[in-house]
């Protein structure tokens, strides 16, 4: 007993030391975003030697003004919310039917969904398709593209969750003369709320953070999303580490808050989705 206790104290210490590998870089970024240009250039872990609220405000203000943060925040918010809504709409319906039906078409579609998780989308030729649809450079194209990418993962989660929803509910609805669509949105969809929440949170984080798609499809500084603006800002202010770090803090803050509030949903959902796939 004594040796196992000693053992577990050892493990506690190892665990805490390992956590420093994550925590030190994070602390480093935050603390240096509070400093002056010259102090931040020293790249030290120390607390700013003259801690001044005015310096912090100045740094963050400059990032907001010079870094297109406001328009990027608005763009990111629009794209993320709309894409998540499209994902939930399309994948809830698909996940439900794929779980309930077992015909050939259902099997084929399930295979398509799975391959959507594996193969890389052919991004460059997508420009050709979007040109035909007159959607090049629009938010709508990015929203739909993000939705297409997130569709597979979400459909798998919905399919798995629909197993827990009794089929008897469907049969009762049919006897009452309810149509498929109406039945789904009035009765089934509310029952899927737990998984809808999980998917909403996870897709929010993924799309908010995504760099690749806006990098390809939204190239102008004023009409792109937060990660791309932050990257462009870094290109211009490469030696002003205090400002770069302030920008990094701004981009990470919303997801960090979401993560700390809804950690369990996010972690369990990601693990469940991964194992189902």
């Amino acid at each position, binding site marked *: 007993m004594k040796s196992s206790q000693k053992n*577990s104290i050892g493990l*506690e210490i*190892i*665990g805490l030391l*390992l*956590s420093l590998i*994550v925590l030190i*870089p*994070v602390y480093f*970024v935050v603390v240096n975003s509070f400093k002056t240009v010259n102090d931040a250039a020293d*790249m030290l872990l120390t607390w700013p030697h003259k801690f001044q609220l005015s310096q912090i405000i100045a740094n963050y203000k400059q990032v907001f003004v010079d870094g297109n943060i406001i328009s990027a925040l608005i763009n990111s918010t629009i794209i993320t919310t709309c894409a998540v809504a499209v994902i939930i709409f399309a994948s809830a*319906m698909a996940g*439900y*039917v794929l779980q*309930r039906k077992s015909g050939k078409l*259902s099997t084929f*579609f399930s295979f398509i969904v799975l391959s*959507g998780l594996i*193969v*890389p*989308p*052919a*991004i*460059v*030729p*997508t*420009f050709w*398709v979007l040109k035909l*649809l007159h959607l090049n450079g629009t938010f709508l194209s990015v929203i*739909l593209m993000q*939705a*297409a990418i997130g569709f597979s993962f979400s*459909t798998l989660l919905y399919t798995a969750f629909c197993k827990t929803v009794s*089929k008897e509910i*469907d*049969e009762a609805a049919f*006897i009452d003369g309810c149509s*498929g669509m109406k039945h*789904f949105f009035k009765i089934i969809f509310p029952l899927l709320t737990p998984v809808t929440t999980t998917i909403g949170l996870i897709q929010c984080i993924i799309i*908010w*953070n*995504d*760099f*690749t798609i806006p*990098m390809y499809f939204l190239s102008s500084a004023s009409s792109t999303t*937060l990660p791309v603006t932050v*990257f462009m800002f870094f290109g211009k202010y490469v030696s002003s580490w205090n400002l*770069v*770090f302030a*920008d*990094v803090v701004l981009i*990470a803050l919303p*997801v960090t808050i979401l993560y*700390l509030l809804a*950690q369990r949903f996010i*972690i369990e959902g*990601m*693990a469940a989705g*991964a*194992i189902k796939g």
Partner: protein
Amino acid sequence: MAKPTRSIYSYSFLIPGAILFMIFFLIPTLISFYFSLTDWNLIRANFVGLDNFKYLLTNPDLNIGFKNTFIFTVLTTILKVVFGLLLALLVNRGLKFQNFLRTVFFFPVILSTVAVGLMFSSLYYPTHGLINSILTWVGLGSIAPDWLGDIHLVIYSVSWVDIWKGAGFCMVIILAGLQSVSKDYYEAAAVDGGNSFDVFKHITIPMVRPALFSAFIICLIGGLRAFDIIWVTTKGGPGSASEVIGSIVYRQFADGYFGIATAAGLLLFILVSVIVFPTYLLLSRKEVEM
């Protein structure tokens, strides 16, 4: 009851998803077989045969991308799964700080790649970045390298950034697997007098095999398709030293060579399909046998 179920579960429910899939996966993938054989640049598209592929595979600034993709994928996949397993075992033992540790280890997963990339650009800073400062502090200053500037080292340095960001993801997948293992097995093993290595080898590993497999496949796909983490930390540089297939696609695209970009994208598509689908089938078949 066969008839009613048929009318409630309509395939029309699949239409929104099918449309998204057609526009953004199916049509672009099919059309890329054509555009990859042309010098397409949005205005014209003359047929050039296999020139794009020849160019991609023979130009040393480009074919380094295939070698780097291989290094990056192997290194990140193996190490993320191994570290993920070790972290999962660590936070599954009822430690006092277990919840705190899980929160911390998973945290990098939810951070934006841009944030992580910029963070490491400073940590890897050659003269006095935090990592080299630590090396100097422990007396290894003389060997402190230029992590992102040394052409032989850079792809490994970037791989470590990706491992830092992704190990926590493998941890939660494997942890979910560990938690599904019934305690009865461990009790039975304790009765039989198995030591902890036996238990690990004969109970833990077989039981978490599905989770390990999921983590492995996901890391494999992510590694082959990598673009953002490389672009943010090095833009494929210095020169073309850390170029991967994903960054070549983007660079050719940004320079207006859509035909070459499409050909590179198609090669990536084929590479991923040829590696991942058989691995998936092989490993999931093994699962059934177990």
